[in-house]
């Protein structure tokens, strides 16, 4: 054997060993499919930015298990079918070390089938539909975890505040889609529990913008509260037409859409006194929330939405569970996620045995002079609601 050949062998071994060492210290790759284009693009992108900021913060504090963290993100164009394909690809082709959830309930519902099949833990920060987590025993999901409050909790604040102020009758209206139906059902439940009377309940089809007949019926019953489980355009149309038909309940609240700045920009003074519900606000006194808000604005040039905060927090929750487990092994991370009680910038995290969120609180705000002012729950509310809502003709 010549020295030359020996040299070659040594060189080859060096490359091999070096390669192995690099492998051991290579980044932890976390895969996710997100709605970067399509209907949910705006919200999906905010969630993506939450993930990116979490990646940055984790790496700045030494990474995870001594390794760097790296997100592998694909665009599902807001369609569940594409997301299913992408999670298959992430898990089987890209061989990612872990996954995080996509945007929205329908996409999560579809994707969870894939992650369950491959026994991958998926913290799903933007899925609010109870039925994704609460399932019959033979169809139970073991590896999917909820972060935000369920749809049923959206109108709780409105009803609770109204009940405390002695209001008795409620009208509930909702768009006839998965989320809104659940939110409306939740409102009816809570109202009944508080001994209130639900005098009217009606669903309207998606895309409906003419509420004249529906509101005529509501007006004839003169309820104390109108609770509307809405998205954005229906929330706007409903509010406008309530003014037009002079429907003046003592409290009126909507669900999604009411928290967007566009809600006020569109309705201007007519948005005053309207209650809305949100998963998160940057003014809430959660640890690190203020810093998160600043860092996010600096990094991405715009304010975070609750989707950003939930994405950021979901990623930190997963990282915390991995840290405690000391491994990426799905079953051991799952154990930790089931036990974990954590307070993040997004609020509290704690799940039951189905991975269903039980600790996170929704907050209710009211539009007051063009600002969203948090008015419920009392312990987090810096201000009182302006109650009761004056009739339209006295504003």
């Amino acid at each position, binding site marked *: 054997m010549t020295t030359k050949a020996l040299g070659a062998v040594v060189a080859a071994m060096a490359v091999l060993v070096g390669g192995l060492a690099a492998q051991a210290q290579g980044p932890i790759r976390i895969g996710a499919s997100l709605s970067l284009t399509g*209907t949910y*693009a*705006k919200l999906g992108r905010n969630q993506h930015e939450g993930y990116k900021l979490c990646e940055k913060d984790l790496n700045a504090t030494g990474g995870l298990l001594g390794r760097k963290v790296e997100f592998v993100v694909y665009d599902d164009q807001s369609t569940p079918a594409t997301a299913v394909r992408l999670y298959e690809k992430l898990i089987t082709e890209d061989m990612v070390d872990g996954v995080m959830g996509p945007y929205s309930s329908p996409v999560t519902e579809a994707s969870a089938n894939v992650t369950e099949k491959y026994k991958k833990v998926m913290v799903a920060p933007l899925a609010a539909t109870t039925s994704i987590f609460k399932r019959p025993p033979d169809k139970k999901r073991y590896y999917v975890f909820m972060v935000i409050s369920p749809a049923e909790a959206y109108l709780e604040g409105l009803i609770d505040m109204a009940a405390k102020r002695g209001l008795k009758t409620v009208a509930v209206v909702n768009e*006839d889609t998965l989320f809104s139906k659940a939110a409306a059902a939740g409102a009816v439940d809570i109202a009944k529990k508080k001994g209130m009377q639900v*005098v*009217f*309940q*009606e*669903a*309207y*089809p998606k*895309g*409906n*913008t*003419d*509420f*004249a*007949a*529906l509101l*005529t*019926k509501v007006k*004839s*019953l003169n309820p104390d509260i109108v609770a509307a489980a809405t998205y*954005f*355009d229906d929330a*706007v*149309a409903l509010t*406008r*037409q309530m*003014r*037009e*038909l*002079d429907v003046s309940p003592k409290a009126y609240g909507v669900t999604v859409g009411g928290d967007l700045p*566009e809600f006020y920009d*569109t*309705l*201007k003074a*007519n948005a005053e006194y309207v209650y809305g519900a949100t998963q998160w606000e940057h003014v809430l006194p959660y640890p690190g929330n203020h810093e998160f808000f600043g860092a996010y604005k600096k990094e991405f040039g715009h304010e975070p939405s609750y989707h950003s905060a939930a994405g950021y927090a979901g990623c930190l929750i997963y990282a915390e569970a991995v840290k405690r487990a000391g491994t990426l092994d799905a079953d051991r991370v799952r154990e930790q996620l089931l036990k974990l009680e954590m307070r993040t910038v997004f609020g509290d995290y704690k799940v039951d045995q189905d991975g269903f969120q039980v600790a996170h609180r929704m907050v209710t705000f009211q539009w007051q002079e063009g600002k969203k002012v948090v008015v419920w729950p009392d312990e987090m509310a810096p201000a009182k609601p302006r109650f009761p809502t004056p009739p*339209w003709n006295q504003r």
Partner: protein
Amino acid sequence: MNVFVTPAMLAQVVVSGILSGALYAMVALGLALIFGVMRIINVAHGPLLMLGAYTTYFLYSALGLNPYLTVPVSMLALFAVGVLLERTLVFRVVDAPELSSLLLTFGISIALVNLAQLLFTSDLRSVEYLTGSWVVGPVALSKPRLVAFVFAGALTGLAFLFLRRTKLGKAIRATSQSREVAMVCGIDVQRIHLITFGLAAALAAAGGALIAMIVAIQPEMGQTWTFKSFLVIVLGGAGNYPGALLGGILLGLIEQVASLFLTTQLSEVVAYVLLVVVLLVRPTGLLGGRET
């Protein structure tokens, strides 16, 4: 739920139904014109309406124009768009099998919606100009809807006058009755097609402009209006212009009254069941087919 319907409530929804019905009628008249004259089912009618709505929105928000003054501007702009579309694309399918025109206008519709999404984004926008209502006895008249009703009524009236009284209008009706005979009589059928398409787009644009002042607009708002316009012209009789007026008011009333007695969800069912019934029992529409 047990809601006791009082006469006052009924009056309220009948008024609301007539107010929105006039808008339906005006928009559907455009679709009826194109179908009558060119035998084309224009699926892109709703997206043209959407472009009209955005024209008004931008004129209002960027230039600060009074939104009601922008209605004629939107109409002119969309007249031009209609003419352009006809000259470049639609004229190719006038004598082709019906499927070709369906496919073409469907393609135009998708292109317009996606173009709007690219240019204007999917954010909702609205022209918050006139809000609230006038109360007359037990009935609240929504201000923007009442003004829209007046505009729609006036524009539809003008369109009818134009069709009845002017030489060009008569030429349009002649072409609609028989293209060959019209041609023999020396009518430039190509030109009539061009003007008809432009006119229809302008009527849609007027609808869009008025709707922008009533509800928030977004690029996909048009499709519903395509469907509603179809419903209106089938109810009234395809190609029968006064039929569009009747069909529009009828649809407005059905939607509102059904919502009152049943639910908002079922009102759509009622409207479309009626469509099926009309097609089965009186396929030429309530006022009969192409009588112009």
